[in-house]
Structure formats: C-alpha cells, structure tokens
C-alpha cells in the first residue's frame, strides 16, 4: 500500500533554511536516493535502455577513438571518447592544463564518421576548441597512473588487480571538468528541457560520466590484452564494480549554488520535503524497517573504507565512525512500534549526533521510501528565466521587513571588520575560472569582484534604504541606484525560494569553499570526499554501480554504499 504524505504535518516538520543552509551542514551532506546518478540509473533501468559500443578504434597502447551508445525509448545518446598519449609532465588536474589522457563529448544521437572527424579536431582541445548544437557536454579525464598501470600489469600477466589498491584509489581515471549546457558552442539546456530522460538536473552530465566509467574499464582491459596476449585476462566482475570514476573539483564549481538560487532551493527543498514526509509517517512497516537497517549497515561499512589525507575531514570521519557506532547501538534497542518512529529517530539524531552523522541519517531515513519521495525528483529542475524580472512595485518597507526576517545573520555581521571581508571572489585571467583571493593582499580586489558577497550586499542595501519612506516602491530607488539591481533581484527570488540562500558570510576569513562543493556533489551522488585543501576536493562517482551491460539484471537500487557481489 502506498503511504500518503500528510501535507499539514509536513509543513511543520520542514527544517528551516536558517538550519539547513549553513556551510558546516552543507559540507556534511551525503548522497541519497534523490541524487542524480542514482535517479538516472533508476530511470534507465526502468525504461530498459540498451547500451552498445559501435566504435572501438584503439591501437595497442590504447590511443584512438571509441563511441558508447545509450538508447532509450525515445532517442539515442553517444559518448565519443578520444584517448591520447600525453607527456606525463603535462598531466595535471589544474584548470590551466592543455592536454589530458582522454577527452569526451556527449553527442545527441548517433555520430557519423564526419562527425567523429570534426570532433577529433576540437574535443581534445577542450576550452580552446568549438563544438556544435549536436554536442551536449564536453569533458576530460586523466589516468590514475598508479592504479591504471597496476591493473594493466596484473591483467596482462593473467592475474587480478590488488583489491586493496582499488579500494584505496577507487578509479582508473578522474575527470577534471565536465562542461554541460552551452559551453564552447555546445547545445544549451533549453534543448533538453522537453526530454523526460534528461530534463532532470545534470542527468546528461551524469550519463556522460557513467559511460566514461565503462570506457575506462574497457580501455584498461584492451591495453592488458594487447600487452599480455593469450596470457591476459579481464577484470573479475566483482572487482570491476568497485571501480568508479574519480573527479577533481575546485572553485570553478563553488559559485554555482550562489548563482542558481532557484535550482539550489529546489534541490534542498526536495530533500527536506522527503525527510519531512518520512518523519510524518505514524507507523513503521517491517519491510521499511528492514530496508533502513540494511542501508545503515552498508553505510557504516562503507564509511570504514573512506580515505582522505585532509586533517579536518579525517577528524570528521573519525567522529562519524563513532557516531555510527552510537546510532547502531541506539537502533538496536529502538522501539519501531512507537508512534511516529522515524520522527523520533531523527530527533534523537539531531540531539545526539554530529552534523556528518545527522545528514547521513537523513539520507538513510529517506532511502526505504521510494514510493513516498521519488516524485520529488520532478521538482528539482528550475525555470530560472521565470524569476528573472524585478518587481519594482514592491515597497521599501517590504524589503526592510524581509531583510530583518531572513538576513539577521548578515545584519549582525560587521563587514568593516577585516576577518569578515578578508576574502574576495574573482575570475582568473589564466583560465577564466572563479577564484578566491585575499582582499588585503591582492591588487584590484574591489573593481571586478564577483557578486558572491551576498551578506555584505544585503547589509549595504539595507543601509541605503535608511531614510527612504516605507511606502515608496523600489523602482524609483533602482533608477537612481542601479548598482542595487542584482541584490534586489536576489532578495525577491529568495523570498519565493528560501533554501536558495547560504546563510553564511562567503567572504569571511573562515569560509571553506569545499563545503559548497560537497553540497553540490552530494546531489550528484558522489562518495569518498577527499578534500585536498579548503578549496578543492577529489571524489568518486558511480563506485559500486552496475555497468551498462549489468544494469538490466541488477535489482539493487541502493548501490552507492554497497559492494554487493555480482550474481548474488
């Protein structure tokens, strides 16, 4: 029987933006069944997508071109992969790189040889090339040299790779950028809006990464076969499953959540609504209890394998492991027959666990309730254009009231204090990527500062309204003060999409941009967050997921923390 959400109760159970949209909590989010990798695979499995590899033109060393085709009920998409030989000295995750081990593009449909020739001249250049309306994303990846070579050597000798090394590193290649939606000549997202299979956020980019994973495993087996001849073997299916695709993500991604408040709201709102719906359930069924306990068990085991060299994250993982011990002990004695048991469990977590464990508990609580929450996936896109216009008829008094209600944290911050404005966001001339600078150490910090200093802008706007009549509408003020148009537009958007605002000072000396990265990447479905500084992080994607040829026969939906044996 499908559980029906109790809408009145749900409203009261929603966590407020001031609680959820804090950087330390955002930097503690985990993947969930609403994450895009998982929703994509669920959709492709439900629709019986067919996968093939119509082109594989690789030399003995794995240099050449391959095409992976994914066909759903309505249309086909193709990942075109170019594999290159590069000077090891040029292999870098930094955005200034100009060569990569492999470069990719998602093609809308099935490419012809002419398309492949055209793309061969442009895709390997990445930002320096131009693609067309037929291309839907552009990406690149570098080998994990240590693991890639180890796997080739072992397979060529007829042996399996060392599982520990695979667990330690997690991927054969890591992407260093996946550009979608209207970059470098590629089609914009408008083209995909009416296609149900890719209309959800980042489904196209996730499809690209999913097929990239298949390519990396095929490539390593191809090279091993050529090197080892008849002695060579392929990777055991259970070991293969443990391979994900790595990713290095830096500040290029950080402004996204600030620059797309409607979309950010819709993601967070979906997750918060899902949690509230689960908390509103009055009685727990045995099947959901079993599923929840399995999920907690898998997550506990997976966290034990989470590796990082970052001191802060190491401490947090340590706390998380301790907290999972506490949680397991608590649920071992928990009375699931009590009224509103999921709410009771959540409340206990809020009182007794650190943020990492609280948010893992949230993801785990949502997990067994696909029937109750999966419809929320269809609320996670955004029509940003519909929110673009300023309503100049809103009064000065209404703005004052809204700022006082929603932005107390900004009004309470003294932005004259050095620490509260120590940083500034800018775009670097090296590769046109967002960067975080030191305001008092770098030149020209003010003139073209990126507008991510939301708290300070709100505070300045509030001050500028002083002396204005509350009854005046804002249109006349904006005509005289056009530099406030940005923040006025934002305030009006946030009044309708309150989870779209991060309630922290993003130019403070204490800001950790990786908290923003972690939030976004958790919605992608990433695991194994491995911060390399306070501003870039390595992650793994699609680890433990069924490969395209396994998708049809794999019944397990919650693969993210599960290294289940293939065939069992």
């Amino acid at each position, binding site marked *: 029987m499908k559980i029906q959400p109790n809408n009145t109760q749900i409203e009261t159970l929603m966590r407020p933006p001031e609680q959820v949209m804090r950087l330390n909590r955002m930097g503690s989010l985990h993947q969930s069944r609403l994450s895009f990798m998982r929703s994509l695979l669920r959709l492709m499995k439900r629709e019986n997508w067919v996968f093939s590899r119509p082109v594989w033109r690789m030399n003995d060393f794995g240099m050449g071109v391959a095409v992976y085709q994914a066909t759903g009920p309505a249309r086909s998409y193709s990942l075109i992969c170019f594999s290159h030989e590069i000077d090891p000295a040029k292999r870098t995750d930094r955005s200034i790189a100009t060569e990569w081990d492999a470069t990719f593009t998602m093609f809308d449909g099935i490419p012809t040889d002419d398309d492949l020739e055209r793309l061969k001249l442009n895709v390997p250049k990445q930002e320096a090339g131009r693609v067309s309306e037929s291309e839907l994303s552009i990406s690149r990846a570098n080998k994990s040299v240590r693991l890639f070579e180890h796997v080739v050597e072992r397979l060529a000798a007829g042996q399996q790779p060392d599982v520990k090394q695979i667990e330690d590193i997690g991927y054969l290649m890591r992407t260093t950028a996946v550009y979608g939606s*209207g970059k470098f000549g590629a089609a914009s997202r408008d083209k995909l809006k009416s296609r149900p299979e890719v209309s959800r956020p980042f489904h196209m980019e996730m499809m690209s990464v999913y097929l990239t994973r298949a390519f990396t495993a095929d490539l390593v087996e191809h090279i091993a076969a050529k090197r080892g001849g008849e002695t060579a073997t392929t990777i055991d299916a259970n070991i293969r499953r443990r391979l994900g695709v790595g990713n290095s993500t830096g500040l290029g991604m950080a402004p996204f959540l600030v620059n797309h408040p409607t979309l950010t709201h819709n993601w967070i709102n979906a997750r918060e609504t899902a949690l509230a719906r689960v908390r509103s359930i009055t009685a727990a069924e045995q099947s959901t209890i079993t599923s929840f306990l399995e999920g907690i068990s898998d997550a506990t085991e997976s966290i034990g394998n989470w590796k990082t060299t970052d001191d802060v994250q190491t401490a947090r993982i340590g706390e998380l492991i301790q907290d999972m011990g506490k949680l397991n002990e608590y649920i071992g004695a928990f009375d699931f027959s009590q009224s509103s048991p999921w709410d009771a469990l959540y409340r206990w977590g809020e009182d007794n666990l650190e943020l990492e464990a609280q948010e893992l508990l949230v993801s785990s609580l949502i997990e067994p309730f696909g029937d109750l929450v999966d419809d929320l996936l269809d609320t996670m896109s955004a029509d940003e254009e519909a929110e*673009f216009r300023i309503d100049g008829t809103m009064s000065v008094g209404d703005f004052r009231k809204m700022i006082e209600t929603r932005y107390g944290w900004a009004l309470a911050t003294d932005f004259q204090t050095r620490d509260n404005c120590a940083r500034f966001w800018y775009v670097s001339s090296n590769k046109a990527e967002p960067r975080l600078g030191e305001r008092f150490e770098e030149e020209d910090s003010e003139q073209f500062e990126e507008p991510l200093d939301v708290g300070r802008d709100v505070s300045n706007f509030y001050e500028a309204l002083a002396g204005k009549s509350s009854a005046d509408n804002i249109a006349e003020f904006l005509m005289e003060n056009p530099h406030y148009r940005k923040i006025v537009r934002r305030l009006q958007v946030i009044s309708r999409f309150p989870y779209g605002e991060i309630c922290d000072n993003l130019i403070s000396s204490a800001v950790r941009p990786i908290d923003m990265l972690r939030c976004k990447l958790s919605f992608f479905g990433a695991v194994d967050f491995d911060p390399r500084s306070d501003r*870039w992080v390595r992650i793994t994607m699609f680890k433990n997921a069924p490969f395209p040829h396994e998708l049809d026969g794999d019944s397990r939906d919650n693969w993210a923390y599960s290294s289940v044996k293939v065939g069992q």
Partner: protein
Amino acid sequence: MNNYSNKELRALAVRSARGAYMPWGLAEEAGASLAWLERHGVSTVSSYIALLQEFDGKDPATLGPSFSNTQEVADRSLPICPILTGAYLSDKRGGKLAQEPLVFPAMMMPHLLLPFLVWVAQDLSRTICVKWSETTVLVGPEGFEIIEGQAGLVCDSKQSVEIALNDGNATPNHQYCPRTQVSDAHRNQLEGFVVRTYLPESEHSQKSGAGGGSVDDD
C-alpha cells in the same frame, strides 16, 4: 565565424557589459535583452557592442531618464540608455504607460528596449506602440510586429522614442533562432570587455586550487 548557443551568447553579453562597467544586475538585463532579440531573429550583436562603447565607464546612475512630469522626459546632455530605461519600465510593470505617449528625447539603440516591452505587454495583456525615426513597432505579449520601417529595426544611433499603449494587436512573425553566428571581429570586441573583468591568479591561489599543492600521481 563562431556559432553560439543563445545561453552562451547571453553569458558573453553579460560579462562584456560588466566589463564596460555596468553594475552586475544591469549587465544581466543587457545580456537578457541581446539574447532575447537574437533568439527572435534580430541580429543585434553589432549594435550591442556600440552600446557598450557608448556607455563604457559612465556612471549608470546618470544614464536613465529623468521625468520632468508624468509623461515627459527631460532632455539632457547624455543620451538615455535603453537597458536602464527598459529595466525601469519592466520594474514598473506597466505603471508608467498610458495612451498618452512617453517621450524620450534622445535614446541610444532603442530596439534594445523591445524585450522589456514584451514583458510589460505580458503584464498588462495589452499592445504597446513604439516609434522612432521611420520605424513603428507594435509590441504584444507574444513578441513584436514591425509596422513601418522594415529595414530600420536595428538602430545604432540616438533617436527620439515614443512609447504608448495601443488598442491594436501585434502579430509577431519572428523566427526562433537558437544559435547566433558571431564574427571574429565582434567576438574579439566582446572579449575585449570581458577580459577587463579578470584578475591575475595569485601564487597562493594556484597552490591551493584544484590540482595544486600535490603531484597528480594517484
């Protein structure tokens, strides 16, 4: 030639407007205006560049119309910016428009107003008549129709512009154009504004950014 999606063109237009010292919010409206016109088949990149050149570095607070009474706009030494004017009319949600025309004595590139007036026409569910020089355009909720001056919609000069509510109906016949061809010369001019918004990356930033501070050997 460079083939841009509408979204990529808009992003380029916004950042180039910012490079011409438009404040961020107004730069977003400038980019939206260009993107709307290009999407509806009006080639505007050249005049957009001319607009940025005209207003480059000027204080935006001095570029809007000031009203000497309800419908009359004061003449002034600087030409009026169509983006600031369009944004204002859009903000007012039609509150400023009536059957009696609003007259702007000297506005640059008045065609850049049209997207804003389409939004206002949507607010009011009315048609708006816009006139400058030999050109008359009816603007409705679905788009615009050129009534007079077929060759003259894109206007690179300063014009006296009249805007008034109209009882007729606009019958838009523009084509949907998802892509725009931009010449190398125009791209370079836009990029010239864009690069002003970039700053050199500090050594500290290079070390702590993605891929920095470690050898990528795992």
